């Protein structure tokens, strides 16, 4: 098992009450497993089933395996400009 740290922004940071969270998952966890774990956290139930997850600034697909050394971030729908 490995600790995965995930950065949170805007509404997702508000929902989970923090700008980052850490979850313990198998070393070869996928994006879907990470998101399922985040949705179990207090306040996480309002996260969408398939949020925009990025690893080192690049979008991650649902089945992709995660690298706990990479920078993971969960992005709400974008609203810049």
């Amino acid at each position, binding site marked *: 098992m490995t600790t995965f740290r995930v*950065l949170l*922004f*805007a*509404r997702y940071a*508000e*929902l989970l009450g923090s700008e980052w969270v850490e979850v313990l998952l198998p070393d070869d966890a996928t994006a879907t497993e990470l998101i399922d774990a985040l949705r179990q956290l207090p306040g996480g139930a309002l996260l969408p089933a398939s949020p925009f997850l*990025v690893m080192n*600034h690049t979008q991650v697909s649902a089945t992709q395996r995660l690298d706990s050394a990479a920078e993971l*971030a969960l*992005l*709400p*729908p*974008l*609203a*810049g*400009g």
Partner: protein
Amino acid sequence: MSFLRIGPLLLAPLLEAVRSPERGAIATFSGLVRNHHAGSAVQSLSYSAYQPMAEAVFQTIVSEAEAAFPVRIALVHRLGEVPVGEAAVLVVVGSAHRGAAFDALRWVIDAVKGRVPIWKRERYVDGREVWVDPTAPGGIVPLKERL
């Protein structure tokens, strides 16, 4: 160079950045905070960003636009509180001819809106606060009730 700025945005330095004697056309876009959104009177709004990724995506957008069009691009986006009437984003495009400048300008602002990890929280005159979310019904999501 940073694309994200705290405080008022200025057009003049961006114009200077793309100006050169062989460029005959400069087109600009200023996105200003409007006084109404989603049927409510806006008091102010506040932008936040995933800053390192946002800076990288801005640079990618500029590089892609300068590869796709014969243009030079300069842009900045504001972070933090922005009062009604002030600029949230400025895009400036210089080119030899105006067609490419207009095409690139539209492309860049669409890319900024679609790809840069920036978020917007609106405060209405009636006191309500919302997250702007183009995917939500009505385009907004209320903030959680305060405890």
